[in-house]
């Protein structure tokens, strides 16, 4: 059995009558990057805060390596977190911030200096973090999370403020972390960016898990875009073959058939085909279809 490095079981947080998070259960496995997707206010950050022991659950469990965050012996050695677009005192230099956190996690000065260089802030280490751009603060936050060389990384919207090279850098870093067996849980509403990174997806909306599973599984079901001579007859023929067909009046969207099958059926019916394109669903399509289904 695979040890689930991060696990939530019926995690619930209620503020008065409002369910910020309700019965959220999912796992994030070692060696994989798990994306927590949702619109702003969907409960992503609250879920992550409960995992990190910053917010107390009303009900349910949030476990890391089988235990609660607060019960971890040396939490910063096991879990690294990036929260709220880079937390630091604006009057403290980037270097001093990292050294403050190094003292907290037991990391060495050399480690802090090396990380400052690794995240591309070696030249800005002496500047106060209040003078940093959002992207620089995010890089500092990533360095902070990596100080204790943790196996688990939990990141809340870490791509905010990063420029395209910064995003690519972060993507590489997180993929490398998962490749060597680390667990990564990342929340974001930047779906196209996440699609390039995650292995597993947990879609959350109004505080509930709407869909979860491997990304490849969720976006399986390639659909065909078909434009032909007689849409009515084509629709009937495809449906007779077991496909589901939708149309916007000009194009048919066919699910449940391969391009070869769709082409052969059209040929049998002697209906000309002007366009036949197999379209793979993107994460955004999956997300929107889940959101619309509610």
């Amino acid at each position, binding site marked *: 059995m695979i040890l689930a490095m991060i696990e939530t079981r019926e995690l619930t947080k209620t503020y008065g009558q409002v369910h910020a998070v309700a019965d959220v259960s999912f796992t994030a496995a070692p060696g994989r990057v798990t994306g927590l997707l949702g619109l702003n206010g969907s409960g992503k950050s609250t879920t992550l805060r409960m995992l990190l*022991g910053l917010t107390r659950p009303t009900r349910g469990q949030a476990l890391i390596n089988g235990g609660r965050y607060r019960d971890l012996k040396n939490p*910063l050695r096991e879990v690294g977190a990036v929260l709220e677009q880079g937390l630091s005192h*604006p009057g403290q230099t980037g270097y001093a911030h990292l050294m403050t956190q190094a003292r*907290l996690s037991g990391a060495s000065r050399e480690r802090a200096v090396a990380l400052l260089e690794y995240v591309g802030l070696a030249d800005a280490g002496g500047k106060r973090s209040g003078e940093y751009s959002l992207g620089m603060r995010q890089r500092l936050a990533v360095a902070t999370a990596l100080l204790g060389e943790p196996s688990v990384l939990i990141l809340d919207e870490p791509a905010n403020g990063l420029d395209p090279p910064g995003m690519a850098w972060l993507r590489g870093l997180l993929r490398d972390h998962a490749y060597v067996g680390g667990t990564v849980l990342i929340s974001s509403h930047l779906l196209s960016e996440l699609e390039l990174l995650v292995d597993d997806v947990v879609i959350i909306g109004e505080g509930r898990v709407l869909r979860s599973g491997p990304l490849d599984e969720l976006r399986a079901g390639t659909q065909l875009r078909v434009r032909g001579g007689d849409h009515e007859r084509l629709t009937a023929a495809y449906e007779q073959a077991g496909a589901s067909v939708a149309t916007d009046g000009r194009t048919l969207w066919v699910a449940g058939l391969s391009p070869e099958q769709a082409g052969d059926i059209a040929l049998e019916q002697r209906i000309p085909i002007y366009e036949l394109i197999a379209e793979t669903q993107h994460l955004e399509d999956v997300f929107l279809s889940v959101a619309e289904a509610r």
Partner: protein
Amino acid sequence: MIAVLRSELYRTVTVRSSVLALIGFGIVAACAGYLSDEFWALMAGIGTFGLAVMVTCQHYQHRTAMLLFLGEPNRLKVLAAQSLVALGLGVVLVSVSGIAVVASGESDRYLHTLLVAPLLAVFGVANATVIRKPLWLIAGYLGWLLFVEGILYQLEGDMIFSAFLAAASGSTRGLLWVLIWTAAALPIAAWRIGRDLSGD
């Protein structure tokens, strides 16, 4: 606990506003010492309390409390470490700013103030842990000191700053009352430090 203490001490001396506040409060108290030793004690006390409030509230103001609680999930240990840091700052402030008082032959007041100031520092940390907003706390307590304890009660009685001044003069009763106020504030702080950290 030791890691939090080391981290908090390092943080305090590397945050510019904390260092400037320590120097500023120190200069004000030292200048007050040239006027009167009682005035010095009052200023040193206000400085100690203000510094404690400032270094504690900064964590909530800039949300770095999250990083602190991630590093030490046992928040009572965080409270203890913050109290020790504030206590240390208070001792530095009082001992350095009071040199003129010692030089003027008022070493008794100097020592009594040095004895009671750490309690006021812990009282400040406890208050900042509950209220979390430095401006509200400092403005509120200055108003309280000025209008209630100062004008209404002439800095006499057992309320926190009056008791502090009495203790700084060598009154055991004053010292006891500062201890009582601090001891009363700590359980509330211990309870309230466990509350959720809100988001944006």
